[in-house]
């Protein structure tokens, strides 16, 4: 039985607190380098601020967490990697990045329309002693390789081990919750198996308020967003999709 893990993020509930980013970085042993900037950082989970482009009382803002969308069809990064350092796990639908195989050519980064891939520009390092606080389930990535969200694969691994230890073939869904989902204080991120029509996440993904970013490119991303507000749903399309008059000029961050 193969799963298709994905998530639906309710943007109406996202307060932009950044807990997901912190939890993700801590879970995945992201080094706390202070040299990096907005453009060179390592943020497998990145919350961005968007607006409807208006000023004054008519202005509306929202927060949109960006991560690897785990594209299902014609996965751009998988297709371009010259040495199979990215693969789609057929059993889970997770797009897996294997840093040990990566040569750091960054072709996958140019292929990703979501800018959800990050390069290790620096050697990973921690303040003295802080390596004791590293998550033992996740290997530290070396400088010069690309990384991204693996949907907390270490947690899936743990859940599988737990299931195997108790003689079960399937994992208990409660055992596999990615760090960002667990951390979200408003429960805005709903994670689940999209292949299972009864899964709440799968049901949410089919709601009329749900949308996916750049869905027209045709890569079938497995991260959905939803919002009651039309201007937020309009973010799904590229800026040009609606012509210049909508003026959804959006500030970054």
């Amino acid at each position, binding site marked *: 039985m193969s799963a298709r893990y994905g998530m639906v993020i309710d943007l109406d509930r996202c307060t932009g607190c950044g807990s997901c980013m912190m939890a993700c970085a801590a879970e995945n042993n992201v080094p706390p380098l202070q040299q990096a900037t907005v453009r060179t950082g390592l943020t497998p989970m990145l919350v961005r601020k*968007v607006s409807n482009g208006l000023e004054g009382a008519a202005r509306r803002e929202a927060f949109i967490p*960006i991560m690897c969308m785990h594209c299902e069809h014609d996965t751009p990064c998988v297709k371009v990697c*010259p040495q199979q350092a990215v693969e789609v796990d057929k059993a889970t639908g997770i797009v897996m990045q294997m840093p040990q*195989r*990566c040569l750091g050519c960054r072709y996958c980064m140019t*292929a990703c329309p979501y800018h959800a891939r990050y390069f290790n520009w620096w050697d990973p390092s921690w303040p003295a002693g802080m390596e004791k606080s590293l998550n033992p389930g996740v290997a530290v990535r070396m400088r010069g390789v690309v990384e991204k969200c693996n949907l907390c694969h270490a947690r899936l691994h743990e859940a599988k081990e737990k299931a195997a230890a108790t003689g079960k073939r399937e994992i208990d869904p409660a055992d596999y919750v990615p760090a960002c989902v667990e951390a979200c204080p408003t429960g805005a991120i709903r994670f689940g198996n999209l292949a299972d029509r009864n899964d709440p996440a799968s049901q949410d993904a089919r709601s009329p308020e749900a949308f996916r970013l750049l869905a027209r490119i045709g890569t079938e991303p497995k991260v959905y967003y939803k919002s009651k507000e039309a201007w937020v749903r309009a*973010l799904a399309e590229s800026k040009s999709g609606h012509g210049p008059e909508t003026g959804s000029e959006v500030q970054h961050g």
Partner: protein
Amino acid sequence: MASAVFSDSRWIARGEERTSLSRFLFWLAPWAIVLVVGIYAAGLCLYYGLNQTNMDNRFAFGLWIFLDLGIIALGAGAFFTGFLVYILKRSELRPILNTAVVVGFICYSGAVAILMIDVGQPLRAWFTFWHPNTHSMLTEVTFCISCYLLVLCLEYVPILLRSRQLRKLPSLLVFEHQLHKLVPVLAGVGTLLSFFHQGSLGGLYGVLRGRPFAFRTGFFIWPSTFFLFILSAIASGPSFLMLVAATVEKVTGRRFVPQELFRRLGFISGVLLALYVAGKSIDTLIWLNFTSPSEGFAPWQYYSHKPFGTPILFAEIVLFGLLPAFLLTYRRSAARRGWLLSAAALACAGVLLNRFVLTVQTLAVPTLAFDEFLQYTPSWQEVASFAGVIAYGVIVYSLSYRYLPLFAPSRGENTHVSGD
């Protein structure tokens, strides 16, 4: 005795006049300085990592990839001239053949050197050969470029072995002779390899479904950029050879290449360029009207960011495409050396602009609705490595010109002896 130590006359091919060693060293010195700075910058990048560059997660490719694509396109003259001479038997191009090989060798070795700095983990570059992803255009590029560099080395070897001192060794001389006889095989292999990797370099961007500025539909597994890159490379290759030869003639104040050969190269270049412009125009129209809108991107968007306005498209197609194609093929303009060389320069600038647009503009234009247009300025380390490669090219070419019979006419088919 001192003169014997500081004289390189015994290395200069007999019967060739070359400038004095001191003048030659004076010419090399600035290039050597640039090369040393470039090597230092590259060393910084290898030792400290790519944080030495100004590339970032959005601008994951920068100046270096532009350089790679540019010089590999300009180096296409090597395979194309070899193809014309050995496969199509156009022996009138022989005088330019050695220069073509050396220029190709410089371009490809320079590109591979820069690629090795550009990747984050050069020590793992061979993984591509161990567990390749055959769906990736980059795999094809890696395989073909490494093989073709090998071919170029083998084509360079006979030229090298004909240097005055090396030819004194009978075994090398005979080996050179035998290898030279087999060069047509290498030229054939080189043509096959070049055809694929020039195309795959175009395919590199054409397959990027997630970058609608670059994404193209095409034929079978190859996007249209695959074919356009081949065309533009073989169109600009001869032009670049003309420029190199003309520069050498200018610098040395001597004439090696008959004017007729310049005209011939210009004509080949011009016809191919015209074909390329036609292909590029059709491709652009298809992309603007069908490919891009079907992905949800209105094409005007790509050209709404300064400095990447529509003038760039105009420059690519008309100014650096149609115009040089006309000048290169029109009998009266082609008869004038100045016009011919200016047109060749325009053609080379055109292919460079095309590579620049595809590498830089693709990454600069936003994809997501809330992306912004990004700018990127290379760091001094990137620029220095870039300049280092150019200096390397100048130095290798200068040394080859000084010590190897690059333009020697003696190796014509008539005088070349057959061993059997």
